[in-house]
C-alpha cells in the first residue's frame, strides 16, 4: 500500500529541471524538431500512437521528445492527453479493401490477384550497419525508382479462400449492436472478441510478440500462415449528426495482418482454415502479426479447442497486455513505501525474535532431556 508523503518539493522541482537539461543534451548540437521525429522515426511514432491508442503523429513526436525516447513513457503521455479532450463519437469502420496500398505481401500465395509489393521494408536486408548514415550525407537526394501503375484490384487473401469456402467467414453481427469500448468501461470477463481486439490493438508490442512466439514454440499451437499483410492509407469517415451525412475526416495509415490457421475440425465444425486478425496504427508489422496470432489463440473456446497455454488464457493475456497499466504498477514500487515497510520491519523483527527464542528453548529442552537420559 502506498501512503502519501510530504516534503521534497524543492528536490522534485530541481530533479525535473535537471531532467529538462539532460533531455536537451549537448547544446552545441541542434535540438530535435517534432518534424524530424515524425518524419524520420516513423516506427517509434507509430508504436507510440498504437500503444497510446491515439493517432496524431505530431503529438506522438512531442511525447517521444518529452520522454527522451522512452516509448512506453511516451504512450503514457498520449493516454493522459486524450483524457483532456471531448469525445465526438465513433467513426464508421475503416475499409481496408480500399486502402492506398504501400506494401502487400502474402506468404501463402506467390501469384495472388493484385500481386505483391514490398514497399518500404527491412525484410531481405542484411542487417549490416550502414555507416553512410553516420556520415555527413543527409540522404536528401536518394533516388527512388517508379513504375507505371496497373489498376489491378487487391482482394484480401481471406476473401479468395472464402470464395472456395475453405476458411470460416468473418463474424457479422447487427450493425447497430453495441461495440465494447475499453475507454468507456474497464475490462471485465468474459471478454468478447471486440474487446479483445481493442485490447490487443493498444497492447504492448513486446508482450504480444512473446506470446505469439510462445504459440510457435508449442505452447498452444495454431499453425499460422501470414495469409496477407498490407500497409497503407485508409480514409476515416464520421457520421456527423448535425449534417445528416458522413464526412471524410482524412486518412490514417494502418497495418493489417490476416493470419490463416490450420484447423483440424471438431465434432461441431468441419476442417477448415480459421482466422486471426491484426490491425494497428502505422507500419507496425511485428505487432500486427503478433496480434493476429494471439487473437487466434484466444478463440480456442469458440472453436472447441483445448486450453493448454498462456496465450489462450484470455484473462491472463488481456490483464497484462497494457504497458501503461503494467508500468504504473511495477514502477510505483519506486515511490516511498515507508509506512508499509516500517510495519514489515516490525513484523520481521518480532518473528525473528520469536524464532530465536523458540530455538533457544528447544536447545535447552534438548540438553535437559539428554541429561535426564544420562
Amino acid at each position: 500500500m502506498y501512503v502519501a508523503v510530504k516534503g521534497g518539493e524543492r528536490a522534485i522541482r530541481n530533479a525535473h529541471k535537471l531532467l529538462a537539461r539532460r533531455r536537451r543534451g549537448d547544446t552545441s548540437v541542434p535540438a530535435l524538431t517534432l518534424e524530424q521525429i515524425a518524419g524520420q522515426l516513423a516506427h517509434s511514432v507509430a508504436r507510440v500512437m498504437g500503444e497510446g491508442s491515439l493517432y496524431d503523429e505530431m503529438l506522438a513526436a512531442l511525447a517521444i521528445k518529452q520522454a527522451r525516447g522512452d516509448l512506453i513513457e511516451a504512450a503514457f503521455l498520449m493516454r493522459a492527453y486524450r483524457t483532456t479532450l471531448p469525445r465526438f463519437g465513433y467513426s464508421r469502420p475503416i475499409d481496408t479493401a480500399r486502402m492506398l496500398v504501400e506494401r502487400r505481401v502474402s506468404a501463402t500465395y506467390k501469384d495472388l490477384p493484385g500481386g505483391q509489393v514490398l514497399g518500404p521494408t527491412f525484410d531481405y536486408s542484411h542487417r549490416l550497419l550502414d555507416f553512410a548514415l553516420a556520415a555527413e550525407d543527409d540522404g536528401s537526394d536518394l533516388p527512388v525508382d517508379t513504375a507505371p501503375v496497373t489498376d489491378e484490384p487487391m482482394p484480401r487473401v481471406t476473401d479468395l479462400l472464402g470464395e472456395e469456402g475453405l476458411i470460416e467467414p468473418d463474424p457479422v453481427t447487427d450493425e447497430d449492436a453495441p461495440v465494447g469500448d475499453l475507454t468507456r468501461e474497464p475490462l471485465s470477463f468474459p471478454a468478447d472478441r471486440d474487446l479483445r481486439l481493442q485490447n490487443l490493438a493498444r497492447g504492448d508490442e513486446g508482450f504480444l510478440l512473446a506470446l505469439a512466439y510462445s504459440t510457435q514454440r508449442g505452447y498452444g499451437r495454431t499453425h499460422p500462415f501470414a495469409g496477407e499483410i498490407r500497409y497503407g492509407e485508409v480514409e476515416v469517415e464520421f457520421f456527423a449528426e448535425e449534417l445528416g451525412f458522413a464526412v471524410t475526416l482524412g486518412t490514417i495509415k494502418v497495418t493489417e495482418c490476416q493470419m490463416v490457421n490450420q484447423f483440424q475440425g471438431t465434432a461441431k465444425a468441419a476442417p477448415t482454415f480459421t482466422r486471426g486478425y491484426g490491425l494497428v496504427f502505422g507500419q507496425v508489422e511485428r505487432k500486427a502479426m503478433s496480434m493476429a496470432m494471439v487473437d487466434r489463440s484466444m478463440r480456442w473456446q469458440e472453436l472447441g479447442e483445448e486450453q493448454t497455454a498462456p496465450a489462450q488464457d484470455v484473462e491472463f493475456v488481456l490483464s497484462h497486455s497494457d504497458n501503461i497499466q503494467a508500468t504504473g504498477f511495477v514502477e510505483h514500487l519506486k515511490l516511498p513505501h515507508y509506512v508499509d515497510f516500517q510495519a514489515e520491519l516490525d513484523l520481521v523483527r518480532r518473528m525473528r525474535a520469536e524464532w530465536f527464542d523458540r530455538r533457544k528453548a528447544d536447545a535447552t529442552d534438548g540438553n535437559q532431556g539428554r541429561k535426564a537420559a544420562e
Partner: protein
Amino acid sequence: MREPTSSPDEDTAIEDRRKAMATLAEASPADIAEKFAALTPPSYELVRRPETGLVMVRGRMGGTGSPFNLGEVTVTRCVIRLETGETGSVYSLGRHKKKALQSAVIDALWQRSETRARIETDVIAPLAAARRDRKATVREETEATRVNFFTMVRGDT
C-alpha cells in the same frame, strides 16, 4: 446511426459537398491557408468555435466482420455562418484550429451559388489535383517494388 433518406437531387448535392469537404479535410494547413488568403474575405460569424476532440476509429474483425474499436484520432471541428446565411462545417483530422476555421468558411462559400464555381476552380480542384498527384507518386513508387517469387524445386540451384 442510420442515414436519413433523401431525394436523388439532394443525394447528388450532398455527394458533391462531401467530396469538397473531404478534399479540404485531407489538405495540409499550409495549403488551406494559401487558398484562403487568395479569396475575398467574406463576413461570417462563429456558430461553433474551432474545437479539438476525439473520434474513436473502428475496424472490422477480419476486415469484413463485426466492428471493433481500434483507437482514437484527434479531430477538429468548426461551424460558421456567412452574413448571407450559408452555414459552413468542417471535421478534419488533427488539431489545426486555423485550418478548421478557414475550411468551414470555404465550405460555406462552396454552398453559396454565387461563389461555388470560383471555390471549385480556385480551391477544390487544385487541392484535389495535388492529392491525386501525391497518391499517384505513392502508387508509382510502390509499383517499382512489385515482386515475383519463383518456387524452387528442392535440389535446384
